[in-house]
């Protein structure tokens, strides 16, 4: 362990079982502080350690940009990162497709984007929003779609929204779906918004759309696994379902360090390593992307992943899903 620690100190890459391992982070956020609702700004500021919460805007505006993300990727020895657009004015705020596209330009070889769309006035704005989503996906570097039912307050089983998945399929853009109750204020924790069982109708009726079940149904409010088994069942049943373990293994959400290891263990037992894609949900603070990657590697080692299996999770599965070929 001590030798491993020393090796890590002088390392210029992430290590798994003392060997360099390639990695990409498919879940990162960018944004602008004043596009976050006031109540969420206060909530976030209270979570930052003192004195960061005193002037959170200066901190976040450094980190939540394309350049900030590249810094975090470099610190973490990550090859590339996927930045998410967000349209959740009730809860976490707005980071527009246009903003994400503008940030991609800071390093188009290493930064990619996941588009999103506004759903609040769907009855009147559906066609406009779907067109805007299609336009965003036409941009180089925008390679997927991100939606978060608990943040955006629409049900997973509402067929009115299934056209989102058709548009995504047209562009071969996998759809990342937040599963499990969210820790943010003004989110909806009811089962139809968080339980991936409610997504089954969408998954089965859109076989050409790839669905990524983000956070593995983790309950961030009570800090425990809630829908992990459902996520695993869906991934075993449907070829177009993938798994992503972001945020649930952070020191804040998993202080004992056991939840992420259990998730990786259950994934391996279910023979789903090839359908699991690494993401962190960073950069929640400077250094988070590195910290989470290391926690994921420790958890995989605890779950007896071979080097080849860990390499699949950390990079190859994402390459297979999003690019159909290795990026290196």
């Amino acid at each position, binding site marked *: 362990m001590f030798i491993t620690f020393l090796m890590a100190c002088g390392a210029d890459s992430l290590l798994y079982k003392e060997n360099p391992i390639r990695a990409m982070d498919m879940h990162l956020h960018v944004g602008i502080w004043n596009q976050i609702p006031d109540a969420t*700004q*206060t909530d*976030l*500021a*209270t979570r930052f*350690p*003192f*004195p*960061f*919460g*005193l*002037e*959170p805007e200066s901190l976040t505006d450094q980190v939540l940009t394309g350049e900030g993300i590249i810094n975090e990727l470099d610190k973490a020895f990550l090859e590339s990162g996927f930045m998410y657009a967000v349209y959740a004015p009730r809860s976490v705020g707005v980071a527009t497709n246009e903003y994400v596209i503008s940030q991609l330009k800071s390093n188009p070889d290493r930064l990619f984007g996941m588009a999103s769309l506004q759903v609040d006035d769907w009855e009147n704005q559906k066609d406009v929003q779907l067109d805007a989503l299609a336009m965003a996906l036409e941009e180089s570097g925008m390679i997927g779609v991100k939606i978060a039912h608990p943040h955006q307050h629409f049900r997973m089983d509402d067929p009115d929204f299934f056209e989102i998945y058709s548009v995504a399929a047209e562009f071969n853009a996998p759809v990342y779906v937040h599963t499990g109750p969210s820790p943010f204020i003004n989110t909806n924790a009811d089962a139809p918004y968080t339980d991936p069982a409610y997504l089954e109708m969408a998954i089965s009726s859109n076989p050409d759309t790839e669905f990524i079940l983000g956070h593995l149904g983790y309950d961030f409010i009570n800090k425990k696994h809630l829908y992990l088994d459902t996520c695993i069942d869906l991934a075993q049943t449907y070829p177009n379902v993938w798994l992503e373990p972001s945020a649930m293994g952070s020191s804040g959400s998993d202080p004992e360090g056991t939840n992420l290891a259990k998730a990786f263990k259950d994934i391996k037992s279910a023979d789903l390593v090839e359908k699991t894609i690494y993401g962190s949900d960073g950069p929640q603070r400077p250094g988070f992307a590195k910290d989470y990657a290391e926690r994921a590697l420790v958890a995989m080692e605890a779950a007896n992943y071979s080097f080849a299996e860990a390499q699949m999770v950390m990079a190859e599965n994402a390459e297979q899903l999003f690019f159909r070929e290795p990026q290196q």
Partner: protein
Amino acid sequence: MSLLLWLANAFASAVVGATKEWSVLTQVGAPWKQVRVHAPLNSTFNIVGEYQLAKTTRHQFFIGLNQLYVDRKWRLTGDVFAGTIKQIGELSQQGAAGELRLRAGRTTGKATPWVSLGTHHLLLRDRTVIERESGIETTVTPKHVWSLTGAVGIEVGFRDNWGVVVGLDLPWIPVPAPSIPGAHVGVTWSAK
């Protein structure tokens, strides 16, 4: 040789307290800036006024009493402070505050180490106003925020009445979350 004459003994300044003359400490740092003034009452007690600023948003005004406990190779003093905090921005808050603080520092030598530890208490009063057809009901709910303050550093004396201070700030604001450590440099002055 002349440098040694410049480096006079440095103790009993506004850093450790129990000063025999009017003394002032001014320091800048990240995130804390501070001005502290000691006015001696007698050989045991000082009146202390202190203004502290964290970043550009957290202002604390304190007035207090400093008492000398031990004065040998090390000096130990204690403070009781009362005052107010006004914090602006996303974490805006304002209320009465108080602190019990212990300060200790070596009394001999050119460079004297010092340490400070305190228990800090902030009282916030939140008001709820409910407007009904029958009238308006107002309730005030108090909330107590407990923090720990701490700092450690070195003071180097120049001449008889000047000093330079460097220090590390290690607070827990609020308990139980440890804060990001800070650092500061400052100047002390005592009247001859």
